[in-house]
């Protein structure tokens, strides 16, 4: 079954410069050269994405690639110069101010790179803030806020002020605040980039734990390809305002669309991206305890190498779909294509 498309962005352009609007209406599909010659900056160029319900969709790019602009176009924090953004089939770009406020109040949440906590409010008041502006009943809002504060592991810190917390804790508050309205669509704009590496890892695990419980539709921005590979269902890679490839992490590693994409994938340990299913030999002849096809190679490498014979591979329903032996695993771990 193909899941529903939650958010769909069609031919979205964001151009900066004098008369950008007029320029785009004159030439609906300008090339990079056209844009440059007109003295206009193309922050987002012809973005097309479909994001499925419950998917973790990651937009990856280096600074200046337009990823932050794109996510702000998707939430209409920035007015795109042209295109359509369909959220549950409704075009956000034609929504009125009032409709937009309603959508944001109930259906969207956003987490920010530098947390964007209000300094004059306590943790609990910060988390309650989105409910407060909706004029929700106070007791109800407070109960709800306490619940999400507990969910992100900050129970006991409700009355702290943001500056009394560490960076990781502050971002937990940011996450709690974005979840308090139970949004369908969850934007995370480089949520862990401002944290130091150990905390970042911990927060990524925390994020996966939350998602396993909540099943939100997620648009996640990062400049860290490793983070993208670790968390994503699908990744869109952006460069100079353009999306150059949208694919699963495995496809990106196996079939990079351009040299630019290949450059990113080169330094990623392939065993952490490739799945058993991707490198197995199809067939049903192997014997022994099966390994799941969806497992990452790194997770099962040790037992396959330790085994004397190839192991069977099973799909999600437990059906044997192929086999995998030492050679295939060794090729992934040490073989050609790994960082040379």
């Amino acid at each position: 079954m193909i899941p529903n498309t939650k958010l769909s962005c069609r031919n979205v352009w964001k151009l900066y410069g004098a008369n950008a609007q007029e320029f785009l209406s004159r030439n609906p599909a300008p090339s990079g050269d056209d844009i440059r010659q007109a003295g206009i900056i193309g922050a987002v160029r012809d973005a097309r994405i479909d994001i499925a319900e419950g998917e973790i969709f990651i937009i990856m790019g280096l600074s200046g690639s337009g990823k932050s602009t794109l996510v702000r176009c998707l939430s209409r924090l920035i007015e795109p110069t042209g295109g359509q953004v369909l959220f549950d089939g409704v075009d956000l770009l034609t929504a009125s101010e009032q409709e937009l406020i309603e959508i944001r109040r109930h259906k969207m949440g956003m987490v920010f790179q530098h947390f964007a906590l209000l300094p004059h409010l306590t943790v609990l008041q910060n988390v309650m803030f989105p409910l407060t502006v909706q004029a929700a009943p106070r007791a109800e809002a407070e109960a709800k806020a306490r619940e999400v504060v507990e969910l992100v592991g900050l129970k006991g810190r409700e009355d702290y002020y943001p500056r009394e917390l560490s960076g990781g804790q502050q971002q937990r508050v940011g996450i709690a605040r974005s979840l308090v309205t139970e949004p369908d669509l969850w934007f995370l704009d480089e949520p862990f980039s401002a944290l130091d590496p150990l905390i970042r890892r911990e927060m990524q695990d925390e994020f996966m734990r939350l998602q396993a419980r909540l099943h939100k539709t997620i648009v996640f921005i990062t400049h860290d390809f490793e983070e993208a590979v670790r968390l994503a269902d699908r990744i869109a890679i952006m460069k100079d305002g353009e999306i150059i490839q949208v694919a699963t992490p495995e496809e990106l590693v196996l079939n990079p669309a351009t040299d630019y994409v290949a450059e990113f994938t080169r330094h990623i340990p392939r065993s952490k991206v490739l799945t058993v299913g991707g490198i197995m030999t199809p067939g049903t002849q192997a014997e022994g305890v099966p390994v799941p096809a969806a497992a990452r190679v790194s997770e099962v490498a040790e037992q396959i190498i330790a085994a004397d014979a190839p192991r069977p591979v099973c799909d999600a329903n437990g059906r044997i779909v192929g086999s995998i032996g030492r050679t295939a695993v060794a090729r992934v771990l040490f073989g050609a294509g790994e960082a040379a």
Partner: protein
Amino acid sequence: MKAHLTRQAPVAWGLVLATILLGWFGRDLAKALDARWLVKVPSSWDIPFNTYISAAMAWLMEEAAVGPVSFTDATRAIAWLIEQPYELALNLLARGFLFDPGPEPQVLLPAASWIAVTAAVIALGHYCRSWGLAALVGACFAYLAVFGQWDSAMVTLASVVIAVPIGAGGGLLAGIWAYRHPLGERILSPILDLMQTIPIFAYLVPILFMFGFGPVSALVATIIYATPPMIRITIMALKAVDPEILDFGRMAGTTRRQLMWRVLVPSASQSLMVGVNQVIMLTLNMVIIASMIGAGGLGFDVLAALRRLDIGAGFEAGIAIVVLAIAVDRLSQAFAERMGQVRHTAPGSWAARNKRTVLVLCLLAATWVLGRFSPLLLDYPQSQTITTGAFWNDTVKYLNVNYFDAFEAVKVFFLQWFLLPIKKTLLGIPWPWAIAMLTLLGWRAGGWKLAALCGAMSALIAVSGLWAKAMVTVYLCGASVILATLIGVPLGVLAALNRRAGIAINLLIDTLQTLPSFVYLIPVVMLFRVGDFTAMIAIVLYALAPAVRYAAHGVRSVSGELIEAGLVSGCTKWQLLRLVRLPMALPEILLGINQTIMLALSMLVITALVGTRDLGQEVYIALTKADTGRGLVAGLAIAFIAIIADRLVNAGARGARIRFGLES
């Protein structure tokens, strides 16, 4: 570029020399050529701006109306709105609540007792920071009581209590408007620029005309004077809010109003409090000037003392203003700091959480009740006040008796060798030549736009019939600025290079800046009597601060690498200063001089009290005669001089920065 410069230098020096010679011999030349129009603009060329403005004012007051609402109704409504809270504050702090305010008023409830008010500020000091601050503000208020300044101080405090919220609130709203609408900023920003250069006196006259003599006029003038920095700071603070916070606010689904009042304003609150502090300080700056159009209190005491040349009384009231200013300033700063700090609300009932408030309210009630039996609890006993007036009078008398010759010698020396030659030269420069030179200077410094501005503004001064007075203004201001620069810049450099000297100089400058401008005048008048020299000293003292501060900052912020480069090249200390530090600090120093010029011009009108003959005097006379046209024209002439000087110096500073690659 180099060749270009060397070719131009002789021409520039030639022009300067020609101007000086023309100035020195201008009168003789005009006489020899029988062309008096060279040094005096023919009166037939005058455009009677002042009559036009007076007529316009008269029309405004008598006939202007929008529908059934006449302009006078509007001013009356504003006056009424301001008067209500002011009356309340005045009654509470100074006058007491009266029943049937007839010839024999019955006191319904006396003004708050000095004990209760002092206790309130002590509690506030403790709430805002610590017992240390509480002790300081308590001592300040106790001083006011002990030195017999209490009643006047409370009248002044009442006007501060009213002017500050209106100024800060109005400034906040105007700033928000400008932040939200680009059009608002485009409208406000030139007005703010003009307000910064126009002297206060220029708008005292129209305010006097519209609101009449009295505390309301004084409050209106104070508010107009104190609000602009709040507007500027509000715009800046809102723009400086982290864009992520703004994005968050929008993503949370806030309405425009919620976004402003629940997200942006609280996030910017600390910067906004800096603006409030500015409003408070400017309000206190206005205290004396406002008393010219009807404010009572300490300002009136100073002004009255100055008019009777009673140095002791004037000095005491002046010091009382300073003491009040220190207390209010420290309190507001501590309050701002506190707003930025974390504070956890303690559990318990309202009374348990607000012990200080409860205590102060109890004290207030107790003194009211017990005050019926013991007036000591209400008013500090007159017999116990200390006065230093006699001491100051005696000191000045002693100095005058014993050192009269020395003071006189200093004064004559400066007049003869410094002031009078400058005056003669400036007054002698043929006005067409002066306008041409200013235009040329504008063109050299900032292109044709600046040239047009300089030319047009100086020509306007010429045809307004105020050329001679304007030249006296330039002379007085110029001489003071030269002196202030000669004293201030070396002090600033010293402060930057030597830490201990820096502390001492900073203290001096801080003190000079907190003293209200009139206070300088009193001792100087007593020692040197009225005249240009006295005015000059007062202006120099008042305008010294920015020259020192900017020079110190400029020298301090020269990059460490450049200093090291100088050191490894083998510079001596002196060479390092002359070749590296001073040239790099030049743009900052120029900006400091610019500020000094602005302060000097704003002090001019105040020095009119000691009998100068410049535009300031013109404004002052217009004020006493309530002649709107005359006051506004003279005020605008001062503003024009200020604008020309400001733009020229700024262009010069920018040029220097571009040459050093600090700005492109």
